[in-house]
């Protein structure tokens, strides 16, 4: 019997993986073949999806992107034994798009059966927890501190320090909350990991629980991620059956269990305090800090709130040691960053690399130009609150501090490419529109400022009273930056100002038009 691997990741399914599966089954039946098809997550080369792999003595051989029309030809030309075909890419791990990556957090994603604890263990899974269970809480926390791991949700706060605060807090109950809301446009790493290797997140949360003394975990994810929710629930059930979650984890005496909770279409619920209110069953309003969630979090109890990728990086760190992780990266950005290359790009997908690689390498070497084939014009890095950069800034290295210095942010690692048809004034207007749509409404600079921002941008693009309106825009950006309670209002000026600074010609178009009708 031949073993095949075909992703069931939402992006692969969107690109036809399920239809390919149906044709494969039909053709196999017609030819009297028995196939054993394992549905994995994706390895992250979305441009190669659906990527079908076959197990051979030389390893797995990949074919992609496979369409339903390819299936008959693939079977005819000996795909089942790794035979030649125009869609054959050889062993995926040898393909330059993968070979030049450093896969730590995503080492197993797209390779293992996401719902199998056995497969997970066979690929190095749970080695980190084994080590954590043999150690004391402070040893785990020191290891995470020494690794230099910083939160991947956007703010880049050191994970070990956060855990330490929760560990030291005295309480009858503590929580681990995984922020899987992944609202930033242009990002999909959390989704991909939850669908392709959910047990690494579960293991990371369990290690966190052991380290700080928590007994209950929640994964708060978005309703836009139905595939991830199903994959998580299957993996949690598998971990429970295998004694990796429950009243006595692997006979260690530690109790820990996890529940998945679904958001309801509010971007602001990705902000950690708003997320906690939402979990408690309230409107997702941002809380003033202090108190920190680490001291008074969910239901007033000490709570670790971490992004999916922060938590899922911990098993590798525990299994391989903090020094190995900290040896990668640059400056104070250590380890790897799963970059998500999105938008108008020929070869989009997830690329895990040590910090320090330049944006240009990502966009040009991995991306290979725009998908439309038109000239490149801009990238937005770090989601809807991130900056727009022109070609001249592509040499900026992926590093928290370098991005801050350049007036931008790395955020959750999303890189969205635009060709020369983009209108940066329209993008600036959208930034305000999005903020107006998603503001929690708690503070005036954001709630009112975003609405004013849309109006000012409309006047500017109409060419009305330009000097005055550019001054209003500037004041508004300053006010929102300085006086907003959270980064929703506080960072909305980042895309606006970067667009204006680097692409002024798009804003000034009206000046060169015949006098506007006034």
């Amino acid at each position, binding site marked *: 019997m031949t073993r095949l691997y075909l992703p069931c990741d*939402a*992006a692969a*399914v*969107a*690109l036809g993986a399920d239809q390919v599966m149906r044709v494969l089954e039909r053709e196999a039946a017609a030819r009297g073949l028995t196939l054993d098809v394992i549905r994995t997550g994706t390895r992250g080369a*979305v*441009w190669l999806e659906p990527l079908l792999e076959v197990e051979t003595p030389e390893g797995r051989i990949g074919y992609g992107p496979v369409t339903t029309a390819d299936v008959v030809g693939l079977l005819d030309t000996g795909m089942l034994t790794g035979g030649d075909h125009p869609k054959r890419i050889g062993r995926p791990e040898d393909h330059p798009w993968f070979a030049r990556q450093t896969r730590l957090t995503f080492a197993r994603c797209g390779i293992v059966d996401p719902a199998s604890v056995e497969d997970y263990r066979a690929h190095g899974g749970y080695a980190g927890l084994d080590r954590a269970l043999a150690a004391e809480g402070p040893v785990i926390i020191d290891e995470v501190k020494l690794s230099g791991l910083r939160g991947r949700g956007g703010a880049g706060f050191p994970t070990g320090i956060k855990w330490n605060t929760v560990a030291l807090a005295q309480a009858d109950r503590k929580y681990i909350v995984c922020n899987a809301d*992944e*609202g*930033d*446009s*242009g*990002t*999909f790493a*959390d*989704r*991909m990991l939850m669908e392709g290797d959910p047990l690494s997140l579960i293991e990371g949360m369990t290690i966190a629980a052991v380290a700080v003394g928590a007994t*209950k975990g929640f994964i708060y994810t978005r*309703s*836009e*991620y*139905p595939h*991830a929710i199903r994959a998580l629930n299957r993996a949690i059930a598998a971990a429970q059956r295998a004694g990796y979650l429950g009243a006595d984890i692997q006979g260690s005496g530690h109790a820990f269990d996890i*529940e998945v*909770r*679904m*958001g*309801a*279409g*509010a*971007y602001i619920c990705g902000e950690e305090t708003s997320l906690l209110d*939402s*979990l*408690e*069953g*309230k*409107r*997702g309003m941002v809380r003033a800090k202090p108190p920190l969630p680490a001291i008074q979090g969910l*239901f007033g109890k000490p709570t670790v709130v971490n992004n999916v990728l922060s938590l899922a990086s911990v098993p590798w760190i525990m299994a391989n040691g903090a020094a190995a992780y900290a040896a990668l990266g640059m400056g104070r950005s250590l380890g790897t960053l799963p970059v*998500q*290359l*999105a*938008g*108008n*790009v020929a070869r*989009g*997908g*997830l690329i895990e690399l040590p910090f320090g690689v330049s944006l240009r390498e990502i966009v040009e070497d991995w991306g290979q130009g725009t*998908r*439309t084939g038109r000239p490149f014009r801009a990238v937005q890095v770090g989601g*809807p609150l991130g900056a727009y950069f022109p070609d001249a800034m592509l040499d900026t290295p992926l590093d928290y501090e370098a991005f801050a210095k350049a007036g931008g942010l790395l955020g959750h690692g*999303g890189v*969205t*490419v*635009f060709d020369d048809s*983009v209108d940066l004034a329209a*993008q600036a207007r959208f930034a305000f529109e*999005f903020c107006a*749509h*998603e503001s929690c409404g708690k503070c005036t600079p954001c709630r009112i400022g975003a609405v004013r921002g849309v109006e000012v941008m409309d006047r500017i693009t109409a060419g009305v009273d330009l000097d005055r309106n550019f001054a209003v825009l500037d004041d508004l950006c300053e006010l929102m930056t300085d006086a907003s309670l959270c980064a929703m209002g506080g960072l909305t000026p980042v895309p606006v100002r970067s667009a204006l600074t680097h692409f002024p010609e798009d804003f000034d178009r009206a000046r060169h038009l015949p006098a506007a009708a006034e």
Partner: protein
Amino acid sequence: MTISRPSPLSELLQGVAPWDEETARQILATHGGLEGPLLPILHALQEAFGHVPRAAVPLIAEHLNLSRAEVLGVVSFYQDFREAPPGRHVLKLCRAEACQSMGAVALAADVLGRLELDWGGTTADGALTVEAAFCLGLCACAPAALLDGEPLARLTPPLLAQVTDALAAEAVA
């Protein structure tokens, strides 16, 4: 003409029940043991009835010891919770930046214009509700949408027109 693509939510929507207090009370009872049960309850009600019926609000308030205003405040805060049932199919079309870079603005204008809808509107034949989404995590195969929870990628106006035409034809059949 009918469409052959099976979709989990369409089965579910065909199974959307009219308001029934007994079902609502059962939903409340099965969520009794949860910490922070309100959002799971609202999602379960919406799954059963296609929306969060007004009549459920006093029941929830009583069950969770909240005021009706508090419950309504939560229902109205979240984009997902509907106050009226949607069409038989729901298209969530992404409006965010990565999709914009691949033509999402024109795509949305085309489908909304063709169906004579605003965001959140339902076609006159009750076949389709079109809702805005801000990122579906399908940003490397943009522009993207979810149709009854099933992902669609690299959409173009003609491709999306094929999809919506098939749903309209299904309504006639």
